[in-house]
Each structure stands twice: as structure tokens, then as C-alpha cells.
């Protein structure tokens, strides 16, 4: 597995360009998350790819060929903190409810929604921890689960982002809620 922190312009179509690259070059994305950074206009992707070091170099070089990609860091071999977030809806009535709540305590997860039949459990942590929680909850009846995929940050004093977003040219129009599209 290889993990990349990829800084991209926060523009329409960028995710499509990145994912299309992986598809076209036949690299298998294990997980991809994207969100804003502290720099306005710049988003950060954490991409986990199922490949070796040689493949990682190819991934990096190919990512740099995409114009909206501003910086690529391979953070596979540096100390990082990696977190996944999951919400798990579990069947929990009667005795089961107490047992589930104890498990939530053990895993230092949180209950964020309660209904007569179900609980929604929120947890963050490594994938292993979440996988483990999921397994212990399964016997009670997992109704649904949603996960963000891994986000990852380098530990300690690493360099601040020195890249800036490019200006948005050719972003295309944005469709509005009333159905008509306007040029923005």
C-alpha cells in the first residue's frame, strides 16, 4: 500500500481528473478522501493505492501531469497519523442495547443517535480499530455503515504548504437548484 497526500485546486471536475487517471493507468485506489485545506481554494486528497514503490513513483509522476494537481507527497514511509471515521447503525433493543453501549465505551466510540430500535455509533481511528468494532457489533445486527476512508497527516514539524491554487479557468457552468444552469 502507498499513501499520498495530494494538493489540488478546489475546482469542479478535479476529482474526475484524478480518479480517471487511476482508472486509465489501471492503478487500484484503496481509498480516496478529499476536503478543504487551510489554504483557500486548495483541497487535499489522501489517496491510498494498492501498489509497490515502483508503482508509487509512476502514480506520483502521472499525478503531476494533471494541471490542477499542485503538490504530491508520498507519505508511506514517514511517521503519520491516519484516521478513518465511521458511523454504524446497530439494532439494539433490550439487553443488547446495554451490551452495545458497553462495547462503545471500550472502543471509546460515541453514540450520536438513539431510537427505540437502533443506535448510531460514531467512531474515529485507524481502519483496524473500526474493522474490529464492526466485527463485535455484527452479531447485534448492523443495519448500515458509512465510512470516510483514511485521512492522514505527517507527524511533528513538517513543512507548511507552499503551493497556491491556480486560478480557475474553464470551470464550466454550475447547475442551480431551480433546474436552470447559470454561468458563475
Amino acid at each position, binding site marked *: 500500500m502507498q499513501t499520498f497526500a495530494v494538493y489540488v485546486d478546489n475546482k469542479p471536475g478535479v476529482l474526475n481528473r484524478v480518479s480517471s487517471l487511476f482508472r486509465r493507468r489501471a492503478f487500484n485506489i484503496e481509498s480516496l478522501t478529499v476536503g478543504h485545506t487551510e489554504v483557500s481554494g486548495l483541497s487535499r486528497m489522501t489517496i491510498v493505492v494498492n501498489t509497490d514503490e515502483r508503482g508509487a513513483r509512476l502514480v506520483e509522476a502521472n499525478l503531476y501531469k494533471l494541471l490542477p494537481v*499542485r503538490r504530491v507527497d508520498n507519505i508511506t514511509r514517514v511517521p503519520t497519523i491516519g484516521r478513518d471515521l465511521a458511523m454504524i447503525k446497530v439494532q439494539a433493543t433490550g439487553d443488547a442495547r446495554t451490551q452495545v453501549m458497553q462495547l462503545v465505551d471500550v472502543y471509546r466510540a460515541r453514540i450520536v443517535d438513539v431510537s427505540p430500535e437502533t443506535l448510531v455509533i460514531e467512531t474515529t481511528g485507524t481502519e483496524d480499530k473500526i474493522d474490529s468494532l464492526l466485527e463485535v457489533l455484527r452479531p447485534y445486527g448492523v443495519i448500515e455503515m458509512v465510512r470516510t476512508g483514511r485521512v492522514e497527516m505527517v507527524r511533528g514539524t513538517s513543512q507548511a504548504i507552499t503551493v497556491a491554487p*491556480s486560478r480557475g479557468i474553464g470551470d464550466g457552468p454550475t447547475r442551480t437548484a431551480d433546474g436552470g444552469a447559470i454561468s458563475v
Partner: protein
Amino acid sequence: MSKKTLTGAQILWECLVREGVDVVFGYPGGAILPAYDAMLDYPIRHILVRHEQGATHMADGYARATGKVGVAIATSGPGATNMVTGIATAMMDSSPIVCITGQVGSGLIGSDAFQETDITGITLPVTKHNYLVARSSDIAPAVREAFAIAKDGRPGPVLIDITKDAQLGVCELDWEDAAPDMASIDRSGHSFGVDPIALINAAQRPVILAGHGIILGGGEAAVRAFAEKTQIPVAMTLLGIGSVPASHPLNLGMMGMHGESWVNTAIQEADLLIALGMRFDDRVTGNIKTYAPNAKKIHVDIDPAEFNKNVTIDSAISGDVGAVVTGWMSTLVDVDRTTWLAHISDQKGDAAVRDIKNLPDDGHLYAAHVINDIWRITEGKAIVVTDVGQHQMWEAQYYHHETPRSLITSGGLGTMGFALPAAIGAKVGKPDAEVWVVVGDGGFQMTLCELATMVQEGLDVKICVINNGYLGMVRQWQEFFYQRRYAATPITGPDIEKLAGAYGIWGATVTSRSQVQSTVDAARRQKGALIDFRVEQEDSVFPMVPAGNDLHNMIRRPSPIVETSAD
């Protein structure tokens, strides 16, 4: 420069003219109409094509012949989708073109409007970058950036899709403010591996692999100086032909599937490969597991994404080929490589392609004869534009190119139908050059509609149709690998001489070797010519490395097919 208030359509042409464009290849339609209307007020020559695929191949041929950016223009929907093959062709062969398409009004995007198609989505994997421009004020920065990207680093196609309302809208053109920010593109830190100089100085049996990147970067003189200083022989890829003169004593010829046996053997025996601006395509490596097993590999390319893609590299240097090898020169030591050169030369033996003019006429017309005769008659000075297939390989073998950009051919994508429109583009870009098309009867029929473009524009292009009544390369594979089961390869076509007449072009039919010289001579005196060479129908291209086979396991050229008179 002062700011001007213009329509988006006017800004488009204003920017194109300022980028140095004086000719575009295109086809009008609804969504691009505002741009076409504004075009009349600018110093632009518009070449009206007969199919938008032709426009992209013409822009490509223009770019390959001149080194400048070629421009193609089309309308939305089918106009845009017809361009896709030409864009993919330019992408695979790193040809700098800018394609401009009209798009439906931005208010209609996503509504499946008439002639709406998601062309930026469709072309995403076959462009370096593309834009959907929905604001008039974005046109100038998009055009400027598109030209910069098309030329920058490894060249390639860029598409700008402009909505109709962006063409019609009015805004201020601020040329300086629209300048692209190319400095922020990362170029550093992509070299890796061991010191190339140590490898070169230690090598006893090195071979230079010369690719298209040498020509794209104008590194021919640097590479030649490097080869001469080190006395390292040069093998060329198909698109590398012309990077080193064919007659140069260190030039071995073309490598790969239809490369000469001694070239491939030299690569297999080498202890060092110095790959310059080439990408180890499967057509040049054969079986990758047995490729040059004892050779260290140095790879110089401007695109670091090529390193370790197909072949494991010992020393990768990202940068312009000419600049990199020039930087090596002062640290190279003289190594005596005469034994190695003599060894390669010995391998040639009787297998060498010769000027076959002195072979007696045995009554057969072979494509190799035709191409070799055209080479001799044009003194090797023509720009030859080929299509894809057997004739393409025979051209590469029997027309000896001395200068860069004199062979224009679709290598990576292998696009049939490329030759005629690409030749039209080349002729537009190089009006004083003698331009020959070498095309098969299959590929010719894919884009022969562009004959009308050639006539309407008064372009002097000579067309040599190698007509064997088959889709010859596929037929050859069927003969070798599918027990001669000729599925869908026999092909008929029009009477080509009559077709020439219908288009108002001088035409001729050649059925015997004795007619070649006089017919080619006559064609050269005409303004445009179309010659039907009815060649041997079941002739094959030799030598051949069957796809996926070891590079040294070639099917050799069987004398006497082409080489002797004993047939």
C-alpha cells in the same frame, strides 16, 4: 497593450493571432457560429475540411512538419466527437495541437440540448488538459494557457470547449493579465538511479535508442555529437526516424517489430541501452521479460512518468534530451568501440535493405520497389506522410530519411486514415516542401473525402496508394498466425485513377515496375497527383517479431521476395 472591449468570439481570434496562428483547420456549425462570424475580421486562413477528424489530423501534420502548434476548430456534439480520434493520435505521439469546440449555451448544459455532448469528459484521458469555458472573460487565459501547455515539456493536445454565450458575451481583453502561470509546474526531483556517465564510460556494447523526443526538443545535433564522440551506434524508433541521418555511419536503422535483424540483435546483445526520448513501447521491446537481458538502461525523457513504466531503469534523467546529453559531453572518456561496431556490421550480411534499383525486373510490382524508387527519384528530400499498416513499415525501411520532421506517421495510436489529412496539414505548414502521401488502399478509403479539401485549397500533395486489395497488415497476421483465414481483409475500392479525375486531380495507374519511374516523374510535374500502385497482393513485411515474442526471434526476410531477382 491597451485593454479592449470585445466579444468572446473576437477575443478568441485576437488571442490566436497573438499566439502566432495564421491558419486553422475546421468545420463550422451552430454552437461555433459566433466564432466563425468573427473570424472573417482576422488575418486567419481557414481550411475547410470534409470531416472533423481530418481537421485534427491536419493540425497534427502541420505541427509535426513545422514544430508549431496546430489548431483545429469544430462545433459541438458530433463535430467535437469526430475530433476524438485525431486528438488521441496527437496524444500518443506527443504532437502539440489546440482544438477549439463550440458548446451549447451554458444555460442548456446538462439538459441534453441539440448537439450537446460532454466533450471535456470524453477527451479527458486523451488530452494534456481541457477546458469548458462558460465565461467570455475566461477565453483569453484559457487560450494562452492552452498554447503554453500544448508546447510545454512533453507536447500534446489541449481542447477548449467554449459555450455559445461565452462567444457572444462582451468583456475586456487584458492580454498581460491572461498570461499563463507555467512556472508553478513541478519539474524537479524526478531523476533517480546511478550515475549515467559511469555506465556510459564503462560500456563495451552500448546502443543509443533514439526516439521522437529528440526531434520534439530539437536535440538532433546534440545527440549526433554525443554518438560521434562516444562512437555508440544508434537504433531508431519509428518516430525517431530522422533524428539521426539515415546515411550516418553510426545509424543502424529502425528497431522493433519490423526493425532490421542486426538492429534488434544489437539491442539484445548490448550491455547498455541509452534511451533518448523514447518510451519502450511494446512494438519496440517485444517480450519485455527477455528484452536486452544483459543491458543496464539509461532513460532520458522530459516526462518522468515514462521511467520504469515498461522497462526497469538503472539511471533515469528527466529533462530535455539535447540539454542532458550536451551536459554529459565534457565528462565522457574515449572508449574504443570498433570491435562492437564491427560485430554489428558483420550481422548485417545479406539481410541488409539495399537500394533495389539495380535488381532486374521480374514482372512483379512490389511495394518496397515503389517506395524505394520514390525515395531515389525525390532524392530523399520529400516530406513523406504515411498511414498505418504494411506500407508504413515498408516506407520506414525503404525511404531513407536524412532530416528530422521528414517522416510523419501515426506511431502510437496507429490511426488508419491519418495520412492524407496529415499531409494536407504538412503542406500548409511547409508550402515549399515536396509532400508525398504513402497510404494503403484501406486507410486511403477512410479519409479520402479530404481530396476535396486538398483541391479546394489548391494544395500540391502527391498521393501514392499502395493498393494490394487487402487490409494488408491484418492479412499478413492472418497468414502467419491464423492459418490464412482471411476474415474481412479482402477489400475493394474505387477505380483510383477515375476517382482522381472526379476530384480534378491528375491520376495514374501503375501495374508494373517499368512504369514507376516515368509515372512518379510525371506526378512530380503536376500540382497534386493520385497514383494507384497495384502491387503484389500477398506480400508481407519482413523481418517481423511476432507480437510478444523475444526481440531476437525474428521471422527473417525470405529472399527472394524483395531482395533478389530469383523470384
